[in-house]
């Protein structure tokens, strides 16, 4: 079985919490993190969100770090460039490489740190959402946000059949591998082509079968979606408000502070 992010979200104990609460937390984190002018607030948000995801949401720490590594790697290369090539003022570090002078200035470093912390906080917020809220919980949210019904129904069906076709693709690939379909580059190309075309035909057929299955259970053009009622508990509300307030306070008091 393949383990995708959605599988961890399905197993997370935070899955059964109110979806709107989780969305509010994420949205708040994103907005405050991006609008903050010092790197301290975003770092605080990133720390809080990571703690919630790993400790309360029971996401495996190793997986979480691995997931963070990819975007942080990207952000880091960008940040290095910003640090060297922007800003003015006091020089903190300077050296010469192959005749070219390189120097890091105070302003540049400040900006670089801000960018890094902002992107980190954004990533942590989004990972919090994707590791605690599986797709199947989000359908109700989509519905409540007045998106067209057919779009939601389509996305529900697509979600279900992603896994059917994933299984199908993997078994086809396996069948091809055991008959040496991927033994060299040319064969790999033709094998992957066959896989694609077979998958297309299968999905076409599956559509027919799906219609048949829905029809035989009195389908009348509408899939009813039942939202599970999940009241926000007092403890959750309290924790969230505490988090919001401390983040806002931090935001306010650190707005003119520079750490370099």
């Amino acid at each position, binding site marked *: 079985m393949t383990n995708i992010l959605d599988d961890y979200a399905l197993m997370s104990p935070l899955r059964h919490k109110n979806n709107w609460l989780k969305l509010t937390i994420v949205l708040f984190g994103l907005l405050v993190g991006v609008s903050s002018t010092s790197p301290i607030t975003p770092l605080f948000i990133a720390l809080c969100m990571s703690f919630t995801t790993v400790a309360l949401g029971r996401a495996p720490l190793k997986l979480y770090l691995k997931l963070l590594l990819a975007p942080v790697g990207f952000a880091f290369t960008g940040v290095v460039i910003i640090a060297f090539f922007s800003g003015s003022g006091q020089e903190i570090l300077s050296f010469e490489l192959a005749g070219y002078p390189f120097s890091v200035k105070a302003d540049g470093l400040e900006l670089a740190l801000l960018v890094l912390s902002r992107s980190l906080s954004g990533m942590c917020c989004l990972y919090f959402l994707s590791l605690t809220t599986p797709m199947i919980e989000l359908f109700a949210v989509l519905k409540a946000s007045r998106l067209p019904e057919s779009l939601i129904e389509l996305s529900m*069906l697509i*979600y279900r059949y992603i*896994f059917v076709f994933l299984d199908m693709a993997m078994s086809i690939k396996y069948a091809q591998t055991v008959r040496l379909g991927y033994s060299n580059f040319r064969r790999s190309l033709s094998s992957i082509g066959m896989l694609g075309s077979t998958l297309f035909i299968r999905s076409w057929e599956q559509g027919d079968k799906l219609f*048949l*299955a829905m029809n*035989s259970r*009195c389908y009348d053009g509408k899939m*009813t979606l*039942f939202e599970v009622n999940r009241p926000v508990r007092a403890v959750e509300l309290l924790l969230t408000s505490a988090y919001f307030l401390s983040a806002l306070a931090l935001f306010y008091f650190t707005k003119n502070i520079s750490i370099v």
Partner: protein
Amino acid sequence: MIILETRSLKYTYPDGTAAVQGINIEIKKGKKIAFVGQNGSGKSTLFLLLNGTLKPQEGEILFHGAPFKYDSKSLREIRKSVGIVFQNSDDQIFAPTVYQDVAFGPANLGYSKERVDACVQHALEHVGLSRLKDKPPHHLSGGQKKRVAIAGVMAMEPEVIILDEPLSNLDPVGADEIMDLLNEFNHFGSTIIISTHDVDLAYRWSDYVYLMSNSKLIGQGTPAEVFKEQELLKKAGLRQPTTLEIYHEIERRGLAYGKNSPKTIPDLVNTLKPLDLMWVEVPPGVREGDNLNLGVMYGEYATQSPYEAINATVLHIHPDGRAIVELKRKGIKAGGVLLYDTDNYSLPEVRQIITEGEIAFVGAMGKKSKTLAEQDGIRLDVTTGVIDKSILMALCGKRCLILTAGGMVDHALKRTREYVEKSGIEFTVGVVNREGGCKWLEETDEKSGALKI
């Protein structure tokens, strides 16, 4: 009462393949029907016709005596009453969670939210999947998916349930659970129609069998009638059921007698009993045809249970005063099959019954009972083919306890009683924790005397 009927039904696919030709069937309410035939013999197409999904080019289908109409309102009625479970569960389960999939049918019938919820809870509880209701289908095993598919159809409370190859791709335990479920639905009055190429299944499970071959109906009747016809089976590309085949072989060698077409292994074992003859010294004055009471025997003379009361019919008297008699045995302390209804379950009671009732063998039928036993650490000796195995143990003089619930209690009771009646071998059968149920404590043995022979 006939619930579904077809008259010279004909259907040809757009590409010219004739899938169903001139089929006449009458399906009676509350029966278990099996359509048996090779792959591609037209079973699946026939099912889609019965459900109103396909429209026949010729002939008609009648539901409760009224011909199918193909406008959308009538079709809704038919599809509500005739539920169909497809062979591949992935074709049928399309919603992102188990709950939503099972709720799909009832919601389409326009039920209120509360009623839909009640239907879904009931259906999921029935198939033993309440705990998995928020799972996405790709996290389920094949057997669980099948049960979700069945629950999805059950939630609409159809009168007829059609299952296309219900046991394909299932392991033996999973298959057994599905068959238990079907028996239970049947017990509550649903008519069940399955298609299969498993002759053993059709033979032991169904009340009535239709044989299909090359899109035509080539035979029908009770399983005993249909599977006797070797030629017919050959024509359909099928073989005889194993039980029947073994029986015929034993019969040909003169080792079995009397019984017609044993369906289960206990039935088969029962046919092995040869005519019970014995040399006995008889007092003068006894004549051929007289009945003798030989009293109670035990040890090597008691063949079927530890103690037996034996009556004998004198067949022939030898001049030297000895006679050949045919023995009729009646077990006194035979084994028994006790049923325990887990709807009123209490662990201390079960433990007491097991220890004090000298229960040597415990089985469980149905998901609910199995889960209960597992939770409370009751050791189960058997979880598949429970009734058959319990009967076999009872025949060996052991006492068995079967934990089960709901309609399966009565089903098991009926099956076991039928066996006792048919075989003439007496053993205790009953439900222990029910009003007027049978006693589970052994009555103290009367002093049994042996008779000198």
